[in-house]
């Protein structure tokens, strides 16, 4: 077993970090809140990375973690982690234009209950980026995939604006693209869930890093607040959760890449651990920042919002625990 990144993976991580650090500052997240096209230039710098969506999951996670740490407001998760693998699974030839960065897309599965389970409902919910991608792949109860160009959508207002979610009306004319088997759809969602967990670890670590830095520089009672044991112990627990979640995510990614029989459990563990880490980083991050963290002016809330929204996407922490229970009992 080996948790070290290969030289290529390190290069991927470093170049992604370097690019995002410069091209995706908090100011861009703020601009994107009011104007969804504000991140279009960023997306054109990132669309080269779309092929990661159908490659080794560890590599995809490395990139997703970097995106999560800046809460990148781009349709990468929808296009690379959902849409491209669905096209690949059904043998759709348009995959090439997605992989070379010319086309974007997303996938619509969940019905009114918000659970990503094939169903007969025509109105799909919680579809990421539906208004800004070229095509929506709607999956019906039998796995039939229909590609829809500009279907009627309605934005679901959530805490987070960096990854907009939509209701999509799918009972409209579209192109039948084939049928995805239940096993193939499960595989796509398993990979996407681990990739999302990786992204959440990136966001949780960003929240933690901001909080740790603040605890070292904020002076009260003539000393840094990070010298107080009550603050130190919160930070220790936050870092434990982030480290635990990071390890669970890459363990799951390696298990998927190896076809290990434990991969489904490992996926549930990864998403739930990332959910716990993100939730704790959000709550204790604000608490340690004190009043300044509760202002719009401070950047903390941008990441807090993304963390809480991701925690609810593709199954909440509680949902994944419940599905683990089905495997344990």
């Amino acid at each position, binding site marked *: 077993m080996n948790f070290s990144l290969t030289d290529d993976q390190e290069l991927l991580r470093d170049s992604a970090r370097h690019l995002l650090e410069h091209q995706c500052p908090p100011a861009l997240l703020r601009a994107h809140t009011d104007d969804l096209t504000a991140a279009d230039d960023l997306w054109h710098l990132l669309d080269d990375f779309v092929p990661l969506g159908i490659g080794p999951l560890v590599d995809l996670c490395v990139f997703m973690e970097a995106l999560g740490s800046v809460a990148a407001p781009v349709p990468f998760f929808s296009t690379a982690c959902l849409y491209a693998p669905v096209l690949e699974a059904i043998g759709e030839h348009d995959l090439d234009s997605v992989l070379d960065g010319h086309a974007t897309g997303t996938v619509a599965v969940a019905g009114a209950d918000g659970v990503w389970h094939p169903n007969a409902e025509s109105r799909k919910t919680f579809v990421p980026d539906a208004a800004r991608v070229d095509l929506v792949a709607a999956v019906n109860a039998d796995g039939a995939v229909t590609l829809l160009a500009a279907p009627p959508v309605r934005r679901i207002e959530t805490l987070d604006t960096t990854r907009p979610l939509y209701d999509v009306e799918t009972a409209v004319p579209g192109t039948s693209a084939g049928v995805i088997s239940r096993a193939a759809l499960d595989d796509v969602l398993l990979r996407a869930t681990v990739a999302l967990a990786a992204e959440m670890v990136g966001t949780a670590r960003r929240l933690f890093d901001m909080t740790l830095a603040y605890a070292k520089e904020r002076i009260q009672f003539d000393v840094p607040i990070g010298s107080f044991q009550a603050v130190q112990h919160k*930070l*220790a627990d936050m870092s434990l959760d982030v480290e635990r979640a990071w390890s669970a995510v890459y363990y799951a990614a390696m298990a998927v890449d190896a076809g290990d029989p434990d991969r489904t459990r490992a996926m549930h563990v990864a998403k739930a651990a990332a959910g716990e880490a993100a939730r704790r980083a959000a709550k204790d991050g604000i608490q340690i920042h004190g009043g300044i963290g509760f202002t719009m002016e401070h950047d903390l809330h941008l990441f807090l919002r993304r963390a809480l929204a991701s925690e609810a996407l593709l199954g909440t922490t509680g949902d994944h625990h419940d599905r683990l229970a089905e495997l344990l009992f």
Partner: protein
Amino acid sequence: MHLDWGPDVVAFRAELVAFLDEHAPPQTRTRRDFATSDSDQIIPGWAKEWQATLFDHGWMIPGYPPELGGRNATPVQTLVYLEEMAARGIPRSLHFPGYAIVAPSLLEYGTPEQRAMAPAAIRGDTVWCIGMSEPNAGSDLAGLQTRAVQDGDRFIVNGQKVWTSYAMVAQRCCLYVRTDPDAPKHKGISLLILDMDTPGIDIRPLTHINGNADFAEVFLTDVEVPVANLVGALNDGWRMTQGSLAHERAGLWVEGVARLEQTITGLVDLAHRRGVAHDPIVRRRIAEGYQRAASLRALGYKGFTSFAQGAAAPEHSYMKLASSELGKELYELGMEIQGAYGPVIDEERGEEAGRWPLSFFVSFANTIAGGTSEIQRNIIAQRVLGLPRA
């Protein structure tokens, strides 16, 4: 990044399993909590024989050479060894101080005569205790007050030790004493080897809240220790308090995580027997426990693999903190599932002869001994995260 350990590990694992199948005595296969023996004897005969058998076959400390009870195993092989022993719940020894703490310190810091004591400590032929904690030096270990005053070729020792495991049965003690009361507290401590039959030693067993009495208070009154029994240099004892099997340190978490996993399996069975296997709250809480144990296992592997490549592994404090705290929660859940029967330890009416409430008691010790959870959080905050001391 990859999951497999490689082919040499497969062969190593097979050889170990064959050895265990052939030699491990039935008492080692009961999967009970060996951290606290409830036998009449603190170290029963079978446990002594088993430890000697492991030593003689090079399976006591695989990373050591054969003359020290090992087989020069690699770090990965050592982890596999710890993993297989933990998965089967097989203990190496029922008295950890000699092989885990004393022998490595003697080998690193001792004179030739002192180093020669190591094999017997590892084989279990000599039982050792460690005189470290005192009534006023618990988490603040460096505050210890037991005094040793040099008088010619001997030290005269006076003081009191507490929480001294195995003091009643030990032949020797690694005793931490203050030799320079005027130096800063970390700089006036020395390490002495004390023969437990020396006059002036009074041992009083200390009974735990779970009824076990394998700890003791040790009172030392004008006890004479030859200067030749000083380990390392005078006043240089503090760094030897950190002594442990350095090469095994990155894998020690395995046993704790394996125990958590066995506890979770036990909770699932318990929920079925108590008719709450369909209770959504019970199911979710057990699954949370599983998730935390599984993510800790992943964190342990991550720390181990960076250690095996020569990097520092701060994961030890994370693992100690998280697994001891989770253990406490799981046993508590086991009691809760039983409702009114939670605290019943009655052999006939209690579940598994009181396994859950009694293990709950034992789990209190795990968040205290070896550095409390609060100390672990301090270590993480200050040494890993670089936060300033108060």
